[in-house]
């Protein structure tokens, strides 16, 4: 028998949900129009007034919000409440190294906990369980998001954060962790390290896990489930909207239910911006309808996905989002971190004497993402001594590592050897895709 955290919302009929969404949407739009200048200017430019938005059917009239809008208004330009009401900040990386900052009021944190609590309950977690959180704690939303949701459920939370894998395994074993939360690639890495340590799945009490923050395949799910002896659930979220918990899987493990009472979802044609009928593949767009501090309106996620509204065997009526199938931009997710090729370009240009020709080789070795950056050597950079070339490599590496927030290996290559298509270099070779 499936358990719900909030049955009245999760199992509400479509009509009930729709009228709640319409009410919350019109309120949010009015508040945002009054309090956030950039939203007001965009609506004015589009000739839309708050009173024009009476229901979800009017949503299409509102202008989109792009990632660039968030960057342009860094850090607090899109906040809809005074800072004294903001009790928490989180941030995510952007293409230029400039972060995107989001804020939460006390009530926003409650909404977030609620969303995560639903996800955890759907995964089978109860207050009798021990939640091992291996997501990073910090500006990244993963750690704190799941942590607070798990506490809300009443779970015994173990805030391990990232790193020191052997210690993590000892904690799982000794503390009796029953649920695990981390990136799917880290889950597999944990499983492998466990094998090396001679610990089997029978030695541990794990029975379930929630994994997200990077794309993963059905094959990876099977592997995680088999190796750790658990049920592995997908969880979806993005910092701009709230963090993990925007959508979550139920026992069916086939699509993620979106918390529609907090977020209205649309699919649009990424080229024309036209709203597509539910069931068509398109870019996923979210509108926050309960958030106070940072309510994004029609935020374009760049994720390509499909929505399915059908009676789910779990009993929930929340619309399901099938696993995102890709992105409309060139963003890569490497070890859970967003990486844009343009970040590397800007680092190389800042360093001066390197050619802006580079290639990213992304791979997955031992279930961990690897990133190699090949940089074409410029005549100015070349020297007859190995030491000075290695110094150049180190300089590039430290600049890139600190911009991306993850470690990359640098490889200098001969000029004009990176393949060019119509004069433009092929920026990314993602070997992970071949392995999927």
């Amino acid at each position, binding site marked *: 028998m499936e358990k719900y955290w909030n049955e009245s919302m999760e199992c509400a009929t479509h009509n009930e949900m729709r009228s709640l969404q319409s009410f919350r949407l019109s309120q949010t739009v009015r508040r945002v129009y009054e309090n956030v200048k950039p939203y007001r200017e965009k609506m004015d430019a589009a000739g839309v007034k708050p009173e024009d938005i009476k229901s979800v059917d009017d949503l299409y009239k509102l202008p989109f919000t792009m990632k660039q809008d968030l960057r342009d208004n860094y850090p607090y330009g899109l906040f809809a409440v005074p800072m004294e009401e903001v009790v928490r900040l989180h941030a995510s990386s952007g293409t230029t190294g400039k972060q995107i900052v989001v804020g939460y009021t006390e009530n926003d944190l409650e909404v977030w906990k609620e969303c995560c609590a639903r996800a955890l309950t759907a995964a089978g977690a109860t207050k009798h369980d021990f939640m091992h959180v291996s997501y990073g704690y910090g500006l990244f939303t993963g750690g704190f998001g799941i942590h607070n949701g798990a506490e809300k459920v009443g779970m015994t939370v173990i805030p391990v954060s990232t790193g020191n894998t052997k210690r993590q395994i000892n904690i799982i074993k000794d503390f009796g962790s029953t649920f695990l939360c981390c990136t799917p690639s880290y889950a597999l890495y944990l499983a492998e390290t466990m094998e090396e340590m001679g610990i089997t799945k029978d030695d541990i009490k794990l029975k379930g896990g929630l994994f997200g923050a990077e794309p993963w395949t059905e094959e990876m799910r099977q592997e995680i489930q088999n190796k750790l002896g658990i049920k592995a659930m997908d969880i979806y979220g993005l910092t701009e909207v709230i963090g993990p918990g925007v959508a979550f899987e139920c026992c069916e493990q086939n699509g993620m239910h979106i918390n529609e009472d907090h977020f209205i979802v649309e699919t649009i044609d990424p080229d024309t911006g036209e709203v597509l009928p539910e069931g068509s593949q398109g870019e996923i767009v979210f509108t926050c309808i309960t958030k106070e501090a940072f309510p994004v309106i029609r935020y374009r996620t760049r994720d390509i996905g499909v929505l399915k509204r059908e009676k789910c065997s779990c009993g929930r009526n929340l619309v399901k989002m099938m696993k995102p199938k890709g992105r409309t931009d060139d963003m890569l997710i490497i070890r859970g971190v967003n990486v844009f090729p343009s970040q590397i370009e800007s680092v190389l240009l800042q360093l001066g004497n390197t050619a802006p020709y580079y290639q990213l080789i992304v791979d997955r070795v031992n279930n961990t993402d690897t990133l190699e950056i090949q940089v074409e*050597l410029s005549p100015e950079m*070349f020297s*007859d*001594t*190995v*030491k000075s070339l290695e110094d150049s490599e180190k300089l590039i590496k430290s600049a890139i590592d600190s911009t991306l927030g993850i470690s990359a290996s640098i490889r*200098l290559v*001969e000029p004009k050897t990176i393949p060019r298509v119509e004069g433009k270099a092929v920026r990314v070779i993602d070997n992970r895709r071949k392995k999927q």
Partner: protein
Amino acid sequence: MPLIKQISIFVENKPGRLKAMTHILKDNDIDILAISIADTKDFGILRLIVNDPDKACKALKDAECTVKLTDVLAIKLEDKPGGLSVVMDTLFDNQISVEYMYAFFSKQDGQAAVILRVDDNEKAAQVLEKAGVSLLTGEIIGKM
């Protein structure tokens, strides 16, 4: 100052690169007098002393190679135990650091010679000559 021009070429560690470079030299009738390669995991630096460094440099650049001309010292040595230690003593005493070196035989008289890359060419040339070490010039090398 008796300095000679060395050609350094960036070589990626992948099959066929050395073959391609030696063909460029062959097609331009360049004679290699001395050669050494410094290697790391991902790349190497091919260092050459040739009969016509300017021509070789241009040919390699035209073929999109990353090339650099560097001034180095060429030293004629007595081919007997201790021949090189005089040179090292002199450099050490004058606090001159050696970046790299490699040896070759002079075609002219079959004597040993060493290419030296130091952090201060001018000072090294001065102190070595003072210590009685004979330095080869580009003209002599070219005729070798």
